[in-house]
């Protein structure tokens, strides 16, 4: 019996750490993941203090405000509040569109890099990541500068006679999309690159050998095989886009207001409302979690099949 137990331990010994060695991992998860989430959830059920901060009494006011409208003075019968749901919906839509654009541009880019000779791949990857050495805020502000009515882009377009009057980009959806695209493209490129690099091109040859055209090969063989990379990229772009506030704040206008900005405002200055900001965050996180879980379930089922 003892021998059996020992061999069992040896079998798993290569897979993971045990006992005290796990402590740092658990400490990290506890301090940087569980604690903040618990705190945030806790705050969402507290009462708002006047100049930001919270009063330690239980309240559902934050969720009430998100979901229900009770008129200006709070005495009318409650109806569904559409303001925030609309913002959510718009954010999901914006983030989804940004993800799609990143995918359309990122996939060929990743493919291109992964099929370069080995020694030049590192250089291409380096070039993709170089802009990210500059702070996101600074990059977004620069983009605003570039795109504004009297900015370099419009100067160029008018200077070359392509346009008579400046192209209005700033404060439009287009600007926000550009901002999101520019912010998160590498998060799409890198995981897809990793997947394509591992892709065995003999599979494409085998498909061609069995009468598949190039398009069919892409659809039936390449995409399914590199799918984990594509999905990782989509998640990595979609999730931060959903909570982004720099791009919508600096590049967008009132019509492109997104959840990130809404949350950000709740924690800024005396206008803020911490419990409400926390509640919006909790709702956002729950939504993201549900999406990821549905995906994980679907994938698990696909793998069992």
């Amino acid at each position, binding site marked *: 019996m003892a021998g059996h137990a020992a061999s069992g331990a040896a079998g798993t010994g290569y897979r993971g750490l045990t006992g005290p060695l796990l402590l740092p991992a658990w400490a990290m998860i506890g301090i940087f993941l569980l604690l903040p989430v618990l705190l945030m959830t806790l705050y969402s059920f507290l009462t708002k203090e006047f100049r930001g901060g919270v009063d330690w009494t239980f309240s559902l006011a934050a969720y009430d405000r998100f979901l229900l409208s009770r008129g200006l003075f709070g005495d009318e019968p409650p109806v569904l509040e559409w303001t925030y749901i609309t913002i959510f919906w718009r954010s999901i839509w914006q983030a989804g569109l940004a993800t799609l654009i990143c995918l359309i541009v990122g996939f060929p880019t990743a493919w291109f890099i992964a099929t370069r000779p080995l020694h030049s791949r590192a250089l291409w990857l380096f070039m993709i990541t170089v802009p990210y050495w500059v702070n996101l805020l600074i990059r977004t502000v620069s983009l605003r500068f570039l795109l504004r009515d009297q900015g370099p882009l419009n100067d160029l377009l008018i200077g070359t006679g392509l346009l008579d009057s400046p192209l209005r980009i700033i404060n439009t959806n287009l600007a926000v999309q550009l901002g999101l695209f520019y912010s998160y493209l590498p998060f799409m490129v890198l995981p897809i690159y990793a997947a394509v690099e591992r892709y*065995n091109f*003999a*599979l494409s*040859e*085998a*498909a*061609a*050998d*069995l*009468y*598949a*055209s190039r398009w*069919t090969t892409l659809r*039936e*063989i390449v995409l*399914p*095989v590199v799918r984990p990379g594509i999905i990782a990229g989509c998640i990595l772009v979609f999730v931060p886009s959903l909570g982004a506030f720099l791009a919508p704040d600096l590049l967008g206008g009132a019509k492109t207001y997104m959840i990130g900005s809404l949350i950000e405002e709740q924690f800024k200055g005396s206008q803020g409302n911490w419990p409400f900001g926390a509640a919006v965050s909790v709702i956002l996180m729950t939504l993201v979690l549900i999406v990821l879980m549905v995906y994980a379930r679907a994938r698990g089922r696909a793998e069992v099949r």
Partner: protein
Amino acid sequence: MDEVVAVRRVVKRFGAFTALAGVSLTIGQKQFFTLLGPSGCGKTTLLRCIAGFEDLSEGTILLEGRDIAGLAPNLRPVNTVFQHYALFPHMTVAQNVAFGLKMQGMAPGPRLKRAGEMLELVHLSGFADRLPSQLSGGQQQRVALARALAPSPRVLLLDEPLSALDLKLRQAMRVELKQLQEETGITFVFVTHDQEEALTMSDRIAVMSAGEVRQIGSPREIYEAPVNRFVAGFIGETNLLPVRVASFAGGMARVVLPGGHQLTCPGAQTAPTGTPHVSIRPERMTLVPPGSGDLDASVERLIYLGTDLQVLARLADGTALHLRMQNSARATPPGAGSTIGVAIEEGAARLLAD
């Protein structure tokens, strides 16, 4: 028409490196044709040229009389069993096997039925719903075979399809593969660097080295009538003896062996270039009393091989010689250091072209 594939003076260069240096061969209908050669001699490259994965630097390949230079791989009625299987990892075994049929537009019902038949043929009926990663190497190889056979190609290209199997399974698969080829009537182009495999399975063998075809012929021709030193040495064991050619006419030569004895032997169609050599298989020589045979040699070592004894000897001029004698009670083996006479069987020596 009898010839299915005709390769004409095909040259393939990778940059400055020449992988195929003017290969010409024709492969007949329903033939089991083997490309045999050492690692790196260009066997895979030639298969890839036929399948359409490599553009030719020079030359042409005809498939049933048609030049297929411009034809993409998916338009060639040729299927490949890849050296490293290349099974689709996200598809089940059955889906893998049915893939070619699906691409040909066969409906799901019939194609799954045919996939089932193919799996039966390679003895994998119970594995239809597994993923390739859940199979052993040998099973994967058989799936690759079934997948390539399913669309009934005109020509099946097999790149060392038995290399991943253990000896027992490999021997069994040799027989099965040969049977399969005879039953289906599909032309097989089979790549191997295993000479035994080539000899036992093939109708014709092309022996390659360094991007060139060195000899084409039936297994018997290749083994018994090698035309050059490379083929003689690569297929089986042989003795290469330097000789002087006394006369040469119409493929028959009179040669002078080391030690002065003369011999008439068949061989190359053209007069040999460089130092002429004859090739003599070890089993075609017999031990005789010294002075009464064609050669005299001194014994250096005896090696016990079970059924045989291998006698390693040396001629007076230093040429190494090895021969075999059956391990029987009737024959007394010579002692090391003793001098023996060696008789060469009639027709056993072949004059080589180089």
